[in-house]
């Protein structure tokens, strides 16, 4: 922040939290460690939700039927992020994406990658909504959403 012409107080709030994953998220993220993506199936509408959920927010019933879902899917939407912000998942540029994994009924939020992202004109030639994509795993998996490094074009 640049200096103001008037008197200000600069303050910063740093607050430590420790939040429980709960049973469903724990099992989902443990799955990522083992290169497995889990969803759960709603017992009423039959939708397969991914990441796994404890309940279906539409039917409001338990979604407790666990399924391992495909690591291949279709790119639904993407955006080419070329600026830095607090909490960004990796150094820009990166490509925020919605991906419909095969056999599931919701979109999975992640990143696209696996090719040179630096030149946007080149990126535009490679990446197209509707293209088939596949998960690429990190070698250093910690039970975190970025255990999947990104999805790459197939």
């Amino acid at each position, binding site marked *: 922040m640049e200096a103001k012409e008037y008197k200000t107080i600069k303050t910063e709030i740093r607050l430590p939290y420790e939040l429980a994953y709960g049973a469903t998220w724990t099992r989902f993220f443990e799955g990522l460690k083992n290169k497995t993506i889990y969803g759960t199936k709603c017992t009423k509408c039959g939708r397969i939700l991914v990441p796994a959920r404890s309940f279906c*927010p539409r039917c409001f019933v338990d979604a407790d039927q666990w399924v391992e879902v495909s690591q291949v899917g279709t790119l*639904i939407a993407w955006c*080419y992020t070329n600026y830095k*912000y607090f909490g960004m998942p990796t150094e820009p540029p990166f490509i925020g994406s919605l991906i419909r994994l095969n056999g599931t009924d*919701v*979109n999975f939020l992640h990143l696209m990658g696996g090719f040179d992202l630096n030149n946007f004109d080149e990126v535009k030639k490679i990446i197209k909504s509707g293209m088939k994509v596949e998960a690429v795993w990190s070698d250093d998996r910690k039970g975190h959403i970025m255990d999947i490094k990104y999805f790459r074009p197939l």
Partner: protein
Amino acid sequence: MAKQVAIVAVAQNAGAESKDNFYDQAYAVTKEVLDKAGMTRDDIGTVISASSDVFHGGISCANSYYWETTGAFLKNASRQDGESLFALFYGAMRIMTGHYDTALVIGLCKGSENPSNDTCTLMYADPFYQRGVGLTETMAAALQMRLYMERYGVTEEQCAKVAVKNLGNGLRNPYAHKKGRYTVDDILGSERLIDPLTALQVAPKSEGMVALILASAKKAKEVADKPVWIKGFGSSLDNYYVGDRDLLNGQLKNAADRAYKMAGITDPEKKIDVAEITEPYAFQELMWYEGLGFCKEGEGGRLMDSGFTGMNGRIPVNPSGGVLANNPYVSRGLQRVVEAVLQIRGEAGEKQVPKTVKTALAHGTHGYAGQCHAVAILGR
């Protein structure tokens, strides 16, 4: 909704950075709205505020800090977080209980002091999944924009025209924070922060203390020459995770239908004379035209091209410049109400639309890509 609750006075401050502190800004706008209504603090029955805590203010339980700036000492007062338009609904409901003749509704936000909108909106994300992928309101909007353009053939130029219109309208609004005469090329040539969005298609971060006084029908007739009646309101909430939602078939239609039903409106494209809507990203204004029933699904771009929503159009949308010109993040929905009230009263100054305004619409939204929508219908 028959003539039960009226807005009898409104006040707001300027959106650009101010050297005043939050506390004094809030006091000043409360004083101004009371003066305009010819009232004192003692005439106010109940107070509802809309604000947010740490991320949008740097203080926790912010309402305990600012209550006295709203004149709430010894009164029944409560605070609403999230979409500020709800504070108007709650104020109206309290008067409809018959226990209060007046309510002060105030939205408080001093954007220039806070971290960027992206920092704040990253914190909406659940800490396990979406936050790890860096989801912000801007990223959700960019994904939604891509879907919208690809599904309906809406062009980047049509999206940019919203920014041209609203930043241009902002020139007539002395309170607007960001304004100027731009071309479509200027908008599309501005920094490509997160393709398909460019910098001039993203709302700024503004100040916004916004106050209104509501009154019962009996009280309104005593104190106001030009009461503006709350005719209807409605809202609707979508699922939380952006991947669970159809980002092109959101909840605005539900929210608007509920408000129209309460107001007895069956043909909004004919009955609404002016609309002030919340479009933090330019293309969203086109999508919201569709959700509000001003045109069919996918026709927002063509409606923009036709001039329907321009200053001289059938339904001018955002004659104040909207949220692209002024974005007090927390109070922007209530600010839309203030602008709609000024249009109905014929007191909008240079931004007054060149037509008779009998019925106006105010809209607010919050959450990723319009998770929550709220609509109010106001009229003479």
